[in-house]
């Protein structure tokens, strides 16, 4: 082990993306103004949320989708550190960055969505272990902390802080395991939250095994997100990742998607509700799009070696998985969830403004992190690899 850390920042390699960051900045500013209105006049002032539909875009997209899409962190951490598949090491840092940013975004969005966000700490002192949301809350809290720790070496390295680096290193594996456990719990528990709405969610989506489906789909989408994000980052930030690595991830996906598909359809079969796939009108359509477009099609694609040999094909195939998951989460928590009779919900533009601002902030943070922190390991010659690779 050498004491010095060699981190070559890519800030020198590309010009600062002024246009992109300005656009993102404007979007964030808009979101900030909207958020201020919300804190003065209440949630009703900026949203179409109502008692008829108390959770909307923010929860469905920012929370349900956001958390699942950030699953790349724990899946890749597991792959690299637990399964010890070191080949994927070069992308683990960026996966963890994405996860970390993802969870921070979720929390930021919740600050807007919660009625009294300043009381978020209440979950620490007021316990209701029966509540799936209580568990989600705790896990998200802890896991974000874990992610922060997992991510911290980037910062420590950047600023050459050796003591904390060593400290982190000693607890690295327990940390990774904790992250996996927490992720397993809350990825599934997000599904459990919906278990309290058995009579409101369309039977095509409602099942007591929603937690399992949520977990399985999160694992798949975690990998798909890593492929997608890495491919995009390669394009946008100009650092290439070995195709081999992406292909390797892609090769795992048919198995994961297949498992998900089998469990999901098997569950419908057992429940005797397979016919709903074709007899529920718009819901059937949505379900089929979700399953065919987001599961079966990518499953087939990733199984094709030709696809795995093409960066573009990989990108598009993983995008399918991601979109499939987004549709799934929107379906189960928004579209196929009946509002109170006599009410309806279409997100307000200002709700989009908040979500867009949060995503913008995430992207900006990602860009900046990639610029200023030692994220993109793989571009360094082997000898310059850092000593501590904490995910």
């Amino acid at each position, binding site marked *: 082990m050498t004491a010095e850390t060699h981190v070559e920042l890519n800030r020198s390699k590309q010009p600062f993306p002024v246009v992109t960051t300005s656009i993102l900045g404007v979007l964030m500013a808009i979101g900030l103004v909207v958020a201020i209105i919300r804190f003065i006049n209440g949630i*009703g002032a900026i949203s179409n949320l109502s008692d008829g539909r108390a959770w909307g875009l923010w929860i469905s997209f920012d929370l349900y989708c956001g958390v699942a899409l950030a699953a790349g962190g724990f899946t890749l951490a597991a792959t690299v550190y637990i399964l010890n598949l070191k080949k994927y090491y070069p992308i683990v840092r960026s996966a963890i960055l994405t996860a970390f940013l993802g969870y921070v975004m979720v929390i930021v969005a919740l600050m807007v969505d919660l*009625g009294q966000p300043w009381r978020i700490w209440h979950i620490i002192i007021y316990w209701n272990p029966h509540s799936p949301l209580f568990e989600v809350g705790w896990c998200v809290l802890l896991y974000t902390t874990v992610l922060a720790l997992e991510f911290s070496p980037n910062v420590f390295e950047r600023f050459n802080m050796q003591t904390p680096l060593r400290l982190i290193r000693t607890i690295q594996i327990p940390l990774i395991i904790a992250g996996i456990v927490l992720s397993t719990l809350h990825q599934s528990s997000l599904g459990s939250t919906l278990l309290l709405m058995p009579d409101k969610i369309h039977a095509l989506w409602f099942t007591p095994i929603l937690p399992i489906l949520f977990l399985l789909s999160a694992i798949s989408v975690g990998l798909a997100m890593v492929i997608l994000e890495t491919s995009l980052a390669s394009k946008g930030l100009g650092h290439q990742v070995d195709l081999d690595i992406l292909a390797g991830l892609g090769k795992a996906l048919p198995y994961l998607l297949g498992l998900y598909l089998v469990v999901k359809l098997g569950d419908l079969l057992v429940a005797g509700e397979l016919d709903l796939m074709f007899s529920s009108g718009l819901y059937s359509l949505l379900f089929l799009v979700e399953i065919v477009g987001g599961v079966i099609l990518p499953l087939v694609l990733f199984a094709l070696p030709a696809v795995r040999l093409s960066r573009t094909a990989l990108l598009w195939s993983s995008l399918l998985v991601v979109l499939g998951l987004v549709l799934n989460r929107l379906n189960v928590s928004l579209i196929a969830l009946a509002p109170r009779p006599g009410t309806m919900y279409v997100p307000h533009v200002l709700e989009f403004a908040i979500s867009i601002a949060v995503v913008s902030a995430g992207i900006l943070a990602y860009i900046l992190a990639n610029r200023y922190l030692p994220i993109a390991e793989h571009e360094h010659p082997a000898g310059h690899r850092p000593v501590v690779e904490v995910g």
Partner: protein
Amino acid sequence: MAKGMLIDLTRCIGCRGCQAACKQWNDLPAEPTSNWGSYENPPRRSANTWTTVTFNEVSEGDRLDWVFAKRQCMHCEDPACAAACIVGALRKTPEGPVVYDDHKCIGCRYCTLACPFGVPTFEWDTPVPYIRKCTMCVDRQAEGMEPACAKACPNEALLFGEREELLQEAHARLEAHPEKYVDHIYGEKEVGGTSNLYIASVPFDKLGFPTLGPEAIPRYANVAMAAVPPTIVVVSAAMAGIYWITKRREQMMSQKVSVPVEQWPKPDQDKED
């Protein structure tokens, strides 16, 4: 003993004394409304309107029924709202009412989604919002009074008392007048039973009551939540185990190639298997 209310819709004359009394007792402001082609107003319950009477024109062939139904929190025996509440702000008391603690709530509104009866409502237009719903007038009960709505009802459509006794009374009424009632005590079995019980002359689904099974709403979530501790143990153990195995295999391999144990292998040493 747990209290409850027997709401006999055959006796409700739709006068809405209860609706006004609830607002009066609980100091709830009026809402701006407009006639939308119905006597019903406010059109739905809200943080400022905890109970409403619905006006249901039910026709069957030539026959027309106009059935009025006072709706409010059912005070479930195993309430979904309480199961949902992230901080335990909602709670079923042994005395019957499902109560809400202002001081705990963080405003997540999970309760509003979980409730099968669409009850909890939220203060959407204030910077410091709370959940609001019928309290079964616990504050009045504490003073030995019946709920304000029951007190106001001119026609004894709202009977406040011990749930067990009310249940017997409901059964007695159904038995005495089978021609008058549908054979269904809504709330006796629904979602595991509710403190408030309804009897009526027409099927409840025609009055906008949700059709619900006898199982408590939290049944699935409870299973999932019960699985949490074992999941922690199993997943941690599995991960540690796998780690141990992979690590050991790596050690053995690295011994072969004489790489120090502490050192990470080069990525390209690991080929896909």
